[in-house]
């Protein structure tokens, strides 16, 4: 299904293929190409195959399924071809023609499992660590038994938020500027601590945080080719949040890839060109982007404690080492630089260094698929090796599946930038300290 064209001809994703010189720079930079023969490269399945893709005919190319969607091709292209976006649309075309597997349907609906699983957290967390169960899931569904699954927290960020709001006395007059917090599914069900820290960091900087109803960004559906459903999620978010953006209320999130979906994918991959989508795209911020923006205006509180005053556990993990920072592919796609790194540089005694690896390999749900698991491990191998060589026991990364994958494969603990910022501000996710 192609929506009516509303962008200038050559900016429309499928037609950016016309800018392709076939230089193969994207093939050279693609992290999947070196580790498998099953993927002929972004140029071949992207702009090259695009010539054979009639909107009304089935996609001619199956190997595009092995594209991880990391988007490095789009970034390195000197001519503005949206290679990854073309590939993602082609994957959706494949799913439309061939249908999708139960496995991809399950992985695509992460939004549901997070919430539905919360009451059964102990059981599920046990099951996902129980090897025969994982073996069975691999054999029957094709979900890799080796992939690191997150654990259910047993409560949701939203439930914590509701309780906190009830307990706290609401001041009659609140002149603080308002920000909307967009938590995403993972923070809601698996890592509520990140949301708790983010909210407090924003409050520490003088904001009133609100958490209006919101939906999954739809990225797992989008990358598994289920565009129709992904668009339904997108519509929920645009209609829930666009008004805040129009009123100049920033929407701030902690999930780098989800934010990117709202910022760019809705328009350039899902083909939504309406006013709500554009307003939301212009008004949503990654939390580091938002905080760094404050700092540039001289409005960020910089009462950061040095590492030596961090909680002992974190201090021990950092030790004398530099802290490796991996900028996830989806975060690079924002085009906002490395605001997390810029912020972390403000913390005394902390030495954070950006790794030169392109992709950690997991690429959302890609590395959870049994047939792609080895690829996901091999793609990230240089990054894992570098972290081990440095001897770092703590690393930083902005997106969840990347964090879990890097942690599993490198042995380091991998935290979100807000976890370090919070420690530097003296903020904890401890219940008593928070209310």
């Amino acid at each position, binding site marked *: 299904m192609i929506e009516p064209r509303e962008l200038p001809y050559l900016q429309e994703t499928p037609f950016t293929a016309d800018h392709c010189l076939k230089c193969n*720079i994207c093939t*050279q930079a693609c992290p999947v190409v070196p580790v498998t023969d099953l993927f002929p490269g972004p140029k071949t399945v992207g702009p090259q195959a695009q010539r054979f893709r009639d909107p009304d005919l089935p996609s001619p190319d199956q190997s595009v399924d092995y594209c991880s969607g990391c988007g490095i091709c789009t970034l390195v292209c000197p001519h503005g071809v949206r290679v990854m976006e073309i590939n993602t649309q082609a994957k959706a075309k494949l799913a439309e023609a061939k249908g999708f597997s139960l496995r991809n349907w399950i992985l695509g609906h992460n939004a549901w499992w997070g919430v539905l699983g919360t009451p059964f957290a102990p059981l599920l967390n046990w099951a996902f660590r129980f090897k025969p169960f994982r073996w069975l899931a691999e054999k029957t569904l094709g979900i890799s038994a080796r992939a690191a699954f997150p654990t259910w927290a047993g409560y949701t960020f939203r439930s914590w938020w509701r309780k906190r709001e009830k307990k706290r006395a609401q001041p009659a007059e609140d002149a603080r500027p308002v920000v909307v917090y967009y938590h995403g599914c993972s923070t809601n069900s698996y890592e509520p601590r990140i949301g708790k820290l983010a909210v407090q960091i924003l409050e520490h900087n003088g904001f009133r945080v609100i958490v209006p109803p919101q939906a999954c960004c739809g990225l797992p559906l989008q990358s598994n080719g289920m565009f129709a459903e992904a668009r339904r999620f997108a519509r929920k978010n645009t209609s829930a949040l666009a008004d805040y953006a129009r009123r100049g209320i920033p929407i701030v999130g902690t999930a780098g890839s989800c934010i990117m979906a709202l910022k760019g994918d809705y328009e350039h991959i899902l083909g939504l060109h309406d006013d709500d989508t554009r307003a939301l795209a212009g008004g949503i911020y990654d939390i580091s982007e938002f905080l760094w923006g404050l700092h540039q205006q001289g409005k960020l509180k910089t009462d950061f404690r040095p590492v030596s005053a961090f909680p002992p556990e974190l201090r021990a993990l950092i030790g004398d080492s530099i802290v490796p920072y991996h900028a996830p592919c989806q975060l690079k796609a924002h085009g906002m630089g490395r605001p997390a790194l810029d912020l972390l540089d403000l913390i005394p005694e902390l030495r954070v*260094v950006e790794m030169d690896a392109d992709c950690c390999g997991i690429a959302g749900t890609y590395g959870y698929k049994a047939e792609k698991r080895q690829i996901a491990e091999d793609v990230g191998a240089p990054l894992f090796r570098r972290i081990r060589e440095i001897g770092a026991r703590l690393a930083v990364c902005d997106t969840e599946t990347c964090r879990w994958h890097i942690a599993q494969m490198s042995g380091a603990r991998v935290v979100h930038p807000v976890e370090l910022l919070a420690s530097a501000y003296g903020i904890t996710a401890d219940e008593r300290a928070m209310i």
Partner: protein
Amino acid sequence: MDDLLIIGAGWAGLSAAAFALHLKPKAKIRVIAQGIGSLVVTPGWLSLLDSAQGEVLAAVRDLAARHPDHPYALAGAEALERAVRLFAQIGAEIELGYQAEPPLYNKRVFTALGSLQTPAILPYGYQGAAQAGERPLFVGFEGWRDYYPSLSGEPHVLIAPPIGARPWDLTPTDYARHFDQPPFRAEVARQVKARLNGATSVAFPAVLGLEHHAETVQSLQDRLGVPVFELPTLPPSVPGARLYNKLRRYLLDRGVRLQIGHPVVRGVREGKRLAGVEVAAAGKPQFFGARAVILATGNLYGGGLFSDDSGRVWEGIFDLPVQHNSDRQTWFSARMLAAEGHAVHRFGIRADAQLKPLAAEGAPLAENLFAAGHILAQPSESPSPFETAEGVALATAYRAAQLALTQP
């Protein structure tokens, strides 16, 4: 706010960043580029003045004296030598074998089409060409469409190392990754050795390792017992990628921000200065403030200049006036590989003696904007810009970084 913001990640942009680090180690430096930058489409060697007969730096000084509006002259007499010395220092750290201690003399290297080139500074892979001897053997890979050794010279052989099912479909980088694996090298050496037939050296396309280049060249030489050297291939270039990868690590390790992907679309003025630049990012434009900006986006090839079918040529970010011929008939020489190059390659912006780009009225556009590399116009009677390609990039990058870092 950054101390220095560099637009462009080609030879000029990346070396400006590296030089700035050496000139002021604590400076906050950011590089922003649309796409990966031109290193991966260059052979990876450094042309300073390919036609120089004697010491190259002296010949460049002479060239600058004869052409006061040449970028070498704008960069100043000392810039190239200082740039080259610094590059040698960085080259030693990144272990690609770039030796650049003056005095410098041009080297003789082979091309894939059997001609000779004479750049001044070479990475390991090309260095063996100096010991090619009477009878170099040109080696290619069976079924590979990117390199035909018979075009490079005779005698030639085609070998068939184990590279999987689709030999025709591989890029130079794919071969380079195979060469990073010791068993693959050993097999290549075995097949070539059997067909050496008295060769005095062995030439390969430039795919001898991506991550482990020096080790690859060394191990092949050890096994074959004769000098081994590379010939540049079709793009994307492996020697260019090696340099890019190593420079990237070098810069990131030292805190430089390297943002590849989204283009700078305009400058933000504040009186006579630039407050910073705006990037066409996802969702909304992103502003990056800087004390000084270096424009190193290249010419029509690099993406700094644009043209259309009316003969108009423009600069894409600051709309700087471009020195060019408006008659398109005069843009190209009659022969594609004409030694003098093409007029179109000399098009570029004009800058003052401080490398500050000049606006339409002839005054600098902004006090803290500097230009480096091939976005600078080259005078029509001077040597072809290809002869001085990397030299101009390095010299102007050095000078621009030096001037930019003195900004308040």
